[in-house]
């Protein structure tokens, strides 16, 4: 039976939880084969096995000094052409590989799947959340090997396996090595949960006035991830990687706490599919109030520390 290729999302030597979820999804279509790009060692091998695939392709030889998405796509093209589907992470890099790969395979691509199910013939049908989370769309690839990028939370990871490891050597074309990387800084791994994978997200906006300490303290008391609105990021108050919204990260947590965030459509696009929305805002007319399940009209610098205190007190 043809395999389903899954491109792993790495965080150093760790394979991310979202990859294990996608491997579990892949089983509905065929035996999952996980592609792990980059340095291979015992730590990566353990993490790859924990993700639950039947096979692992260890892709090495990617040029370290060039932008790698095209080189990854070129390396996978032959394997992908013989697969039943290719599933990739819905990250910036994952979407780039998907675009390059589909162009080579002359396949269609569906991006940002929040679910993926087989139809009567066993072919994948994706569910997407579009137009700032106001529509649910079901779509499919109708030509070529289906290429789908999958968002975190689409399935529960399955058990660990003992996969066969097959080495794969990259042979990048001149166009794939044309973009030279002069230097690269890898984002330090924080102590907080990953924004896209967290059960609870506490975000701060303009209302923080640049002071995220109350937001961070509440997040830490809840074991939550921290996010930021575009206004906060544009003001230089919080790093770009934490921006929630249309041009940042899309999150779908159990609880989203929007603190001092007005709720522009671009922000709602990134969090409107959260199960529960809680807002803290001085302005009772702010758009976020119209979508919040619970809202406090007040200054976050007063409300959040009290909430943090209350959580700590209840835990005692």
């Amino acid at each position: 039976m043809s395999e389903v290729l899954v491109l792993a999302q790495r965080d150093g030597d760790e394979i991310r939880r979202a990859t294990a979820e996608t491997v579990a999804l892949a089983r509905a279509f065929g035996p999952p084969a996980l592609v792990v790009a980059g340095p291979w060692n015992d730590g990566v091998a353990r993490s790859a096995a924990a993700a639950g695939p039947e096979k692992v392709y260890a892709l090495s030889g990617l040029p370290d000094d060039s932008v790698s998405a095209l080189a990854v796509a070129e390396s996978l093209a032959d394997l992908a052409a013989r697969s039943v589907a290719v599933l990739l992470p819905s990250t910036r890099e994952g979407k780039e590989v998907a675009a390059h790969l589909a162009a080579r395979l002359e396949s269609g691509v569906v991006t940002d799947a929040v679910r993926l199910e087989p139809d009567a013939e066993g072919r994948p049908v994706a569910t997407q959340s579009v137009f700032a989370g106001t529509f649910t769309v079901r779509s499919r690839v109708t030509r070529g090997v289906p290429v789908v990028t999958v968002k975190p939370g689409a399935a529960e990871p399955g058990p660990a396996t003992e996969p066969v490891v097959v080495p794969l050597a990259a042979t990048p074309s001149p166009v794939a090595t044309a973009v030279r990387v002069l230097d690269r800084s890898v984002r330090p791994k924080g102590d907080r949960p990953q924004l896209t994978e967290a059960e609870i997200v506490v975000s701060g906006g303009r209302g923080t006035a640049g002071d995220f300490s109350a937001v961070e303290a509440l997040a830490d008391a809840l074991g939550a991830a921290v996010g930021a609105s575009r206004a906060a990021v544009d003001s230089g108050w919080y790093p770009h990687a934490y921006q929630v919204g249309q041009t940042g990260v899309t999150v779908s947590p159990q609880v989203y706490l929007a603190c001092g965030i007005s709720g522009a459509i671009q922000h709602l696009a990134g969090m409107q599919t959260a199960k529960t929305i809680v807002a803290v805002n001085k302005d009772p007319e702010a758009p976020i109030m119209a979508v919040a399940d619970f809202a406090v009209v007040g200054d976050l610098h007063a409300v959040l520390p009290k909430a943090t205190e209350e959580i700590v007190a209840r835990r005692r």
Partner: protein
Amino acid sequence: MRTVVLAKYVPDATADRRFDPADHTTVRDDIESRLSELDEYAVEQAVRLSEQSGGEVLVVLMGPGGAADAALRALQMGATAAVHVRDAALRGTDAAGTALVLAAAVGRAGGADLVLTGMASTDAGTGLVPAMVAHRLGLPFVGYVDELDVAGGTATGARETEAFRERFEVALPAVVAVTDHINEPRYPSFKAIMAAKKKPVEVIALTDLGIAPDEVGFAGARTAVESALRRPARSSGEVVKDDGDGGARMVAYLVDNRLI
């Protein structure tokens, strides 16, 4: 230097965006539409580069008649000329078909030293088209760029993904997709708005690009939408005013609903 900016005409994000119930295309009639906000950053960067080192900025877009407004906006921002691909057969075109058309239009216009795009459209938002255009043109591609300079036939800049930030250089020609962190797009001055009225906009059809109708539209699409359902609108819930107990009440809400 010759820069081509690929742009899209999209429904405004604050309008009542919806799908045609029959064929699941985005409804265009009676919906306020505009040059995709994310493409304004590409137009702005192209115009800034031309202001620094000369050269022309050609805007290429495909879309229905209303897309002329998006072309005009780009011209008001400082682009030199526009090409608008308009053809009834384009209805239902997906990312692959869009890339085919845009790449062909770039070729017909005589190519480019630099092809600039936004990181994604603000409606479908797949972000796939830029890399697919690069494939069609056989050019190197750099995505998610938030710093970009061009000198002596080489583009240098920086890009960022979830995992890392990197500085890069690439010999032109190349395709570069920029993010909303690269610049602050200008509001056109009255003078620029008047000047734009005299700038050339060429409207062309698929036959001008040598593309058969069945290579695009629904016939050429490699993806299909099976259903598009409006989600029940979120409604506002309980609102409390903070009288010193707002934090405690918020926690009580989370605990009572077993959310923490």
